[in-house]
């Protein structure tokens, strides 16, 4: 039978809610730690394999390019731009494999979640997220990747400049998708950054004013 809402003491209500007896055995905990490490190592191996694969593929493009030079019908400037583009992309692939290793490789077992107050941990969590999204272009080397792609595509675009229809057909769709992605991604990212920064500033002010 329903009781009066007035009769509910929130503390009593909260503390008397049914809970589940939950405890993990030492073996389960150790097993979980081992599984987490194994999972992280497998992720690193995958990322390294993809990085190595891309490195070989783009490297192959860089090495065999002189042989294909005539079939592309490019001038010397276009030839070197495209070739260096492949070189840049192969270096980027190598760097991303290494970057994946530094991010994903399991750290030591000790955890630092305990050493901070919850206010510090929350602020640092937000700062980490802000820095990640702010530096993603630099840290993942995406700028190098885009420059490499541009260097590979531009000579072909220049070659086809007298046949605009052919040029539009070959690079138009990719370019349109890229521009659309940028148009959505950049404002959204800026909005997120602004919100995160506001929250971080608020917490910093809080820490300054009310810290123990």
């Amino acid at each position, binding site marked *: 039978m329903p009781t009066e809402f*007035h009769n509910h*003491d929130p*503390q009593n209500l909260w503390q008397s809610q049914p809970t*589940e007896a939950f*405890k993990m055995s030492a073996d389960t905990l150790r097993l979980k730690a081992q599984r987490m490490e194994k999972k992280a190592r497998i992720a690193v191996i995958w990322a390294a394999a993809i990085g190595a694969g891309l490195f070989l593929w783009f490297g192959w493009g860089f090495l065999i390019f002189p042989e294909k030079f005539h079939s592309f019908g490019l001038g010397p400037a276009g030839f070197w731009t495209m070739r260096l583009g492949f070189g840049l992309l192969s270096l980027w692939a190598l760097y991303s494999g290494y970057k994946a290793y530094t991010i994903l490789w399991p750290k030591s077992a000790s955890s630092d979640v*305990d050493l*901070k*107050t919850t*206010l510090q941990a929350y602020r640092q969590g937000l700062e980490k997220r802000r820095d990640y999204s702010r530096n993603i272009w630099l840290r993942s080397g995406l700028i190098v990747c885009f420059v490499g792609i541009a260097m590979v595509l531009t000579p072909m675009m220049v070659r086809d400049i007298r046949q605009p229809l052919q040029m539009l057909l070959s690079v138009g769709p990719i370019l349109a998708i890229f521009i659309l992605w940028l148009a959505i991604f950049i404002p959204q990212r800026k909005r997120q950054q602004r919100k995160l920064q506001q929250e971080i500033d608020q917490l910093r002010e809080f820490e300054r004013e009310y810290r*123990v």
Partner: protein
Amino acid sequence: MPTEDATQVSLYEQAAETYGSALDRLARAYELDAETRRDLLQEIHFHLWRSFSNFDQRCSLRTWVYRVAHNVATGHVIRQRRLRERLVNLEDVETIETIPGNTPDELAIDESQALERLSTLIQRLKPLDRQIIVSYLEGMPAAAISEITGLSPANIAMKIHRIKKILKRWFGEQGDGGKGGVHAD
């Protein structure tokens, strides 16, 4: 003499025994979905176990346990991008929130509905205020909440005053202190 690993395990067992139910409730304050909540609870227990290799008794076991648990749960909120869900501060709830259950008809509700209402309120709060309200509901003194969060006891007392006012609006007179109250020690 027990090995470091044995100390770590025994501290974890002691914590799970003493604060197991409170940790379950804490997970409920951060995650509504039952399956994800179980994962979160497991993660909290796992981090607790790992953290005890660093436990140096500079603070009480309770403070340690709650810090780890709240930090893991807050990390969960950040990772799940729950921050996008327009979470609010206590101040916002106090000033702009409309009060469900304000009409006499809605006042008569059973305990599970009241609990659901309380959970809804908690889930709408930003992590820091959520930590404070959960600690308050667990009946912790302001000094202990201050130690966990890193905010001054005076600020915690101010927040608790707000919480009591809000709970009074949502739960009637009993919300003002209730059985446990919060001691300003």
